[in-house]
């Protein structure tokens, strides 16, 4: 009896600790959501109840903020980064997974290591070079440097997915006379598709949230959403209701994408992190 009683208490303690943790996790996000629907007076007060308004979401797209322009930049940069990175990474990942290459371990370690080079080290020479060849403040420039952070991750993650695909179907097709490229196109790619999609979504999130490169390389034409936030602060002081509305426009698509890859999330992250 005492044992059961104790177990109940333990369960209650456990449950309340979990609830507290969830609360702490969600409150800052919830607070931004609320602020985005407050008018410019309510937002400067500690209010839980207020009359919600949608006007902030209109204001951020108007002059002088032009969030639409930054939204388009972010979308194009992240999308093109992924479209370039995934095929290149897939080819390499297949080769690393299926063949023995001279210097394979060295290549894989170097690729892994580049993922950890601080962004600020990479960006200094790129700034000088882009200044000289006129790529500063362009989307192309931003896409090129984004590949630096996305490629190593994509190669490792996709390699993990391809490692998990059994070899026998491939071998059977080869025996039947298919060429290696046919095997890749007809067998490996369809089987790896969920993995490629997952890796693509991860890369999209990384490129979308990228901050330092865009901060240094852009100032007007190619400014992305996260830098748009910084401009809010510089131009008008802290307009929290507008900052929050812009924050939601940045966050919401990423939440949706993260939920799509939910099933692969732990698996995917541990592939890059724990494996």
């Amino acid at each position, binding site marked *: 009896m005492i044992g059961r009683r104790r177990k109940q208490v333990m369960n209650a303690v456990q449950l309340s600790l*979990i609830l507290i943790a969830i609360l702490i996790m969600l409150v800052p996000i919830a607070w931004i959501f609320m602020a985005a629907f407050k008018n410019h007076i309510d937002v400067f007060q500690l209010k839980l109840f207020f009359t919600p308004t949608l006007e902030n979401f209109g204001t951020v797209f108007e002059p002088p903020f032009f969030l639409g322009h930054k939204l388009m930049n972010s979308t194009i940069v992240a999308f093109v980064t992924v479209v370039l990175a995934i095929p290149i990474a897939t080819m390499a990942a297949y080769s690393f997974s299926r*063949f023995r*290459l001279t210097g394979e371990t060295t290549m894989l370690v170097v690729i*892994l290591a580049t993922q950890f080079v601080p962004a600020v080290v990479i960006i200094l020479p790129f700034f000088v070079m882009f200044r000289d060849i006129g790529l500063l403040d362009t989307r192309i420039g931003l896409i090129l440097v984004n590949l*630096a952070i996305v490629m190593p991750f994509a190669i490792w993650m996709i390699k993990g997915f391809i490692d998990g695909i059994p070899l026998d179907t491939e071998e059977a097709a080869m025996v039947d006379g298919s060429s290696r490229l046919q095997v890749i196109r007809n067998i490996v790619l369809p089987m790896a598709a969920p993995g490629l999609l997952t890796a693509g979504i991860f890369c999209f999130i990384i490129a979308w949230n990228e901050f330092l490169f865009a901060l240094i390389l852009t100032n007007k034409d190619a400014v992305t959403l996260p830098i748009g936030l910084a401009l809010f602060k510089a131009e008008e002081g802290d307009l929290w209701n507008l900052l929050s509305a812009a*924050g939601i426009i940045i966050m919401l698509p990423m939440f949706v994408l993260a939920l799509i890859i*939910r099933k692969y999330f732990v698996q995917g992250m541990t592939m890059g992190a*724990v494996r």
Partner: protein
Amino acid sequence: MRDSTLKYLLVLPAIVVVFATAIWPLIESLRLSFTVGRLSRPGSLEQYLGFENYIWAFLYEPAFWNSVWVTTIYTVLTVGLTTVLSLGLALLLAPGGRFRSGVQTLLILPFAMSPALIGVSFRFMFNPEFGLFDAVFGVLIPPLADVSWLVDPVLAFAVCVMADVWGWIPFLTLVLIGGLASVPQDTIEAAQVDGASGWRVFRDVTLPQLAPVLAVVVILKSIFSLKTFDQIFMLTNGGPGTATQTLSHYIYFNGMKYGQIGYAASVAWLMVIPMIFLTYAYAKFVFRKE
């Protein structure tokens, strides 16, 4: 095409991209670090002065040592707190099958939030007039009721640490839940049957089994903590004064704001050195499994 040719052709584009976007800038940064390297003076990027930038950082720049110090404490605190709290949360969530999948879904959300946005949100939460955390702390710890968090050097630093820990707990928790799931259940049950207390089971059975995953988590988090920039930039911009100026922020300021790109590159390379050790340790763990 023969496989022996094809296999190299397949990796070639990736190697080219990695070389062009990561290896080349790394080497070029090293070269720049030995030059005068003023953005405003054409030609100074080819004007070499040996180790002078490094000597300057070590001997004549208190701000450099300040940022080393800030980064070190920041890394120790964020790595320690994030690891311990994530482990706690993972242990809480692991046995209870009821909430686990729901909570795991919730834990994914902060991952999708960009560090810059986390910085903005914490600046908002700790605003002395209308910040929710500011108000909550004021109620829970009365001496903190009337402080201006981001104006006080120590408290501003504390807010930066809190924002970082908040942003990283979900990811590390998910990784550790994965690690806990791979600890064989029968050894735990055997220990429980033998009458071991919950704490003993954790210390003597779970923890040793979890050690490799924990090591990877600590190494990874250390790497990310050392590089921290986005959040700091949006939260305090290194201030008040230089109280929260991490190395990345110091490099950014010297390189981009003052245009001393040669000097910035030398400090950047000093930052690469601990990264090499950490990456080496990480790679050892990754390849041991292969």
